[in-house]
């Protein structure tokens, strides 16, 4: 539909339902402003030299400087490998939890949630202690057993391992939620046609949840592109760089903001590529699985296979959760992390910081909660409206809206923060140095999570229910509130939790945005690590993880869901 033809329809639509049009326009304006304003500042910054003169030199450098080209290539390799490794880890788990009678589902759900909220640099530290070439525990064991070593964590495969163990929950949550929403009648039909139970489930369910798998895989790819913590710990030791570590280095000795802005901008192309891949993979197929008829929960009987999946889940949980958690908790309880774990070295002193009003810790916890809850809520509210526009209207330019809604996903936080610092330091918007800027910046950076999860959820809801509501005389708003929202609840909860979890651990933007008094919990953790005191950093990391888990559990209780599945 051309833009010209769309105008009369828009006018007509506005006349019939002005509140709807107004709400949509407001949401689009807010999201557009949140996302495009800082990006435009960065784009302009990249087009100027230090003296403020227009130039294309920064962009030319990005595509000709061998070190930057090499870093970009490494980033793509690592991100693609992480995406496939995450699929291998997540899909059997999601299918096992959602569609089979495997034991320990609640444990798996809680563990995957913990894996999701543990910052990837913590996982990196744990794996460095386990798979360091010389002193890694597993390598030492291997050397004793067969005079060789297993694996060098300081390598591209090592980094992929750490990132996949950190990001696989994104695919897990998405695939699990989609699998749980599938009506079992499809599988029953396949079984009645003679297909074995497991084959019917895999053959029918997996294609049906393809949108969820593709969307979340793209998220993992982009998340890996934007990752900094684990790459910073591992890549330098492996003598390679990623785009994010290169970008970070551009912010010091001396800072080259113009080049950093130019180097970060091409990442937008990867977001475009991701959206295109989604479109190609999904084509014009429909994946409606929530229709007017209620879905009945039914599990596939795979016999002893459920124990195989359970064993697999335990291996994943050990690697992704137990080991990093052990490293964290152990360090947080020791007077010095290098000392043996015996009674005289054990202390709770590092947890006293939580109540020490003379330190930045109590304030940083409050700041983190305010900004994470605020950003998650704002992103979800905006997300519902924007997703609705993209999926349920014929508004021209919906592809552009979808792009704008996901463009910040892979954008390195530290680069994006520059756009916010410059953009919100003028006399009209003097927000630099306030928590408001954190709220705005975090919402903009994490909005893609809300958008993609909600979009995926909405794709699965048949429009027949909404049509029925409208034909019965309900207004657009009433239809959304009474019919769509309850059906979207699972997706909404998943989106809120995701945004909350990734926001509360956000460091890359916060490190440039904070001033005295606006420190967040990750900034406090970073400060302790920076001071060379790993033990209080570990205790605060434990607190960060516990807050995330507690929030997830609380939300589930409030919303009346007994399970942990997202």
């Amino acid at each position, binding site marked *: 539909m051309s833009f010209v033809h769309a105008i009369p329809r828009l006018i007509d639509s506005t006349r019939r339902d002005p509140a709807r049009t107004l709400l949509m326009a407001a949401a689009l304006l807010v999201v557009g402003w949140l996302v495009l304003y800082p990006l435009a500042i960065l784009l302009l910054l990249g087009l100027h030299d230090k003296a403020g003169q227009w130039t294309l030199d920064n962009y030319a450098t990005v595509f000709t400087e061998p*070190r930057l080209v*090499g870093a970009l290539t*490494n980033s793509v390799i690592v991100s693609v490998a992480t995406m496939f490794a995450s699929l291998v880890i997540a899909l059997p788990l999601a299918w096992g939890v959602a569609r089979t009678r495997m034991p320990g589902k609640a444990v798996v759900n809680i563990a995957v949630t913990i894996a999701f909220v543990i910052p990837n640099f913590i996982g990196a530290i744990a794996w*460095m*202690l386990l798979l*360091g*070439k*010389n*002193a*890694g525990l597993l390598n030492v064991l291997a050397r004793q057993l067969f005079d060789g070593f297993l694996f060098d964590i*300081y390598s591209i495969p090592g980094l992929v391992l750490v990132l996949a163990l950190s990001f696989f929950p994104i695919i897990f949550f998405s695939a699990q939620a989609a699998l749980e929403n599938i009506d079992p009648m499809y599988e029953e039909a396949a079984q009645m046609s003679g297909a074995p139970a497991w084959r019917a489930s895999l053959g029918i369910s997996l294609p049906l949840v393809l949108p969820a798998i593709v969307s979340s895989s793209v998220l993992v790819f982009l998340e890996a592109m934007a990752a900094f913590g684990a790459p*910073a*710990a591992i890549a*330098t*030791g492996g*003598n*390679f*760089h990623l785009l994010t*570590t290169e970008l970070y*280095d551009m*912010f*010091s*000795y*001396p*800072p080259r*903001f113009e080049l950093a802005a130019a180097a970060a901008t091409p990442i937008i192309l990867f977001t475009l590529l991701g959206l295109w891949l989604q479109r190609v993979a999904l084509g014009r197929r429909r994946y409606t699985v929530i229709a007017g008829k209620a879905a009945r929960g039914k599990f596939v009987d795979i016999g002893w296979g459920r124990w195989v999946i359970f064993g697999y889940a335990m291996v994943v949980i050990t690697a992704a959760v137990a080991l990093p958690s052990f490293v964290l908790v152990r360090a947080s309880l020791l007077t*010095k992390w*290098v*000392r043996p774990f015996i009674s005289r070295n054990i202390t709770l002193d590092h947890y006293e910081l939580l109540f020490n009003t003379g330190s930045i810790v109590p304030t940083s916890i409050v700041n983190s909660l305010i900004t994470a809850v605020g950003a998650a809520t704002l992103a979800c509210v905006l997300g519902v409206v924007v997703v609705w526009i993209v999926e349920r209207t014929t508004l021209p330019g919906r592809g552009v809206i979808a792009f704008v809604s996901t463009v910040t996903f892979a954008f390195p936080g530290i680069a994006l*923060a*520059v756009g916010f*610092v*410059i953009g919100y*330091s003028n006399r009209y918007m003097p927000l*630099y*140095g306030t928590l408001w800027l954190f709220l705005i910046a975090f919402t903009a950076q994490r909005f893609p999570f809300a958008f993609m999860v909600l979009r995926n959820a909405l794709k699965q809801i048949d429009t027949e229910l909404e049509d029925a509501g409208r034909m019965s005389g309900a207004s657009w708003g009433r239809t959304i509130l009474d019919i769509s929202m309850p059906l979207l609840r699972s997706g909404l909860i998943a989106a809120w939790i995701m945004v909350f979890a990734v926001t509360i651990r956000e460091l890359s933007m916060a*490190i*440039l*945005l904070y*001033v*005295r008094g606006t420190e967040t919990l990750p900034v406090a953790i*970073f*400060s302790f*690590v*920076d*001071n*060379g005191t790993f033990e209080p950093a570990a205790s605060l990391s434990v607190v960060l993880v516990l807050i995330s888990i507690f929030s997830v559990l609380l939300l589930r209780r409030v919303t009346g869901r007994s399970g942990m599945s997202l």
Partner: protein
Amino acid sequence: MKRILAALLLMAPVAARAQTDAELYTAAKAEGAVNFAGALKQKETETVLRGFEKQYPGIKVSYTRRSTEPMVQLIEAGRLAGRNDFDVINLTEPGEMVRYKREGLLTATKPVANEELLPGTFDPDYTFRSYALTPMYGIVNTDKVKPADRPKALVELYTATWKGRVAISQPSRGGTDSAALMAVADAMGAEFATRARDLDILLTRGNEAAISAVISGERPVSWGVSGYRALDAKADGSPIEIIFWKEGTAISSFYGGVMAKAPHPNAARLLDRWMMTKATQEKLVEADSIYSSRKDIIATPAGEPPLSKLPLRFYTAEEVTQRGQALAKQFDTALGVK
């Protein structure tokens, strides 16, 4: 004529030093506060700074501690926002101090005559000077390497014995690390980079990670880490020992200076002056495990020898910025960092 004017302008702030402590205090007291941002250790430095508040009632000192890289980011974020919250800064990166001087971010002050300071620890134009010194010590894991086998000279590290056993903070990341590399280059000569390729050196992001790698035994030796951090780790019971290299150990400075647009300019000058007094320097040496740049201070970190007894390599801020970074690039290329 322009040069003379420029020189006069440069010296104008220095002329303000003619104020007596009492005059400066009166003006500073009216400002009521001073914001100090530095790389010196948090708790210990704050304890020392309480002495300033005691000596000059009515002026509250706020100390923001970051290691140099995030501190520079913090300062630069403020600059992007068109504001500066700090009065006095203190960085271990000589290149940044040189740049800040060039960009007019720092103002000249003369808390102490340069002649009273050790060589290479000050800016000849009085824009910055070293508030503290720390050697870039070698360290060795005492659990993994027997006393008899421990290296004593930098050249020993270039032998097969130490292949796959050395960890360092990547020299191209900053001046302290490139100063340590300069000492290696001076000891090894032109082959320092090409021969390093065969050593399977573990590069880390920052000194803390290099020290951790040595403590954990992942690599049992490092040719240069921040001395005060190494001393702290040793005091905490970590299995490491300090090495004073035969060829000389590089010295790293905590350069300090007053911001040109300090929100509290008089309090900033007063603090700068106070930081370089003999009494404060002695307290810092004791509290922060560092050495003083003042020639007349003989105090040393607990149990450590005086600098005069050690083979040292002093490099000026300009040297580290120019030659140090060039060597670091050469080193990265030789190691095939991609």
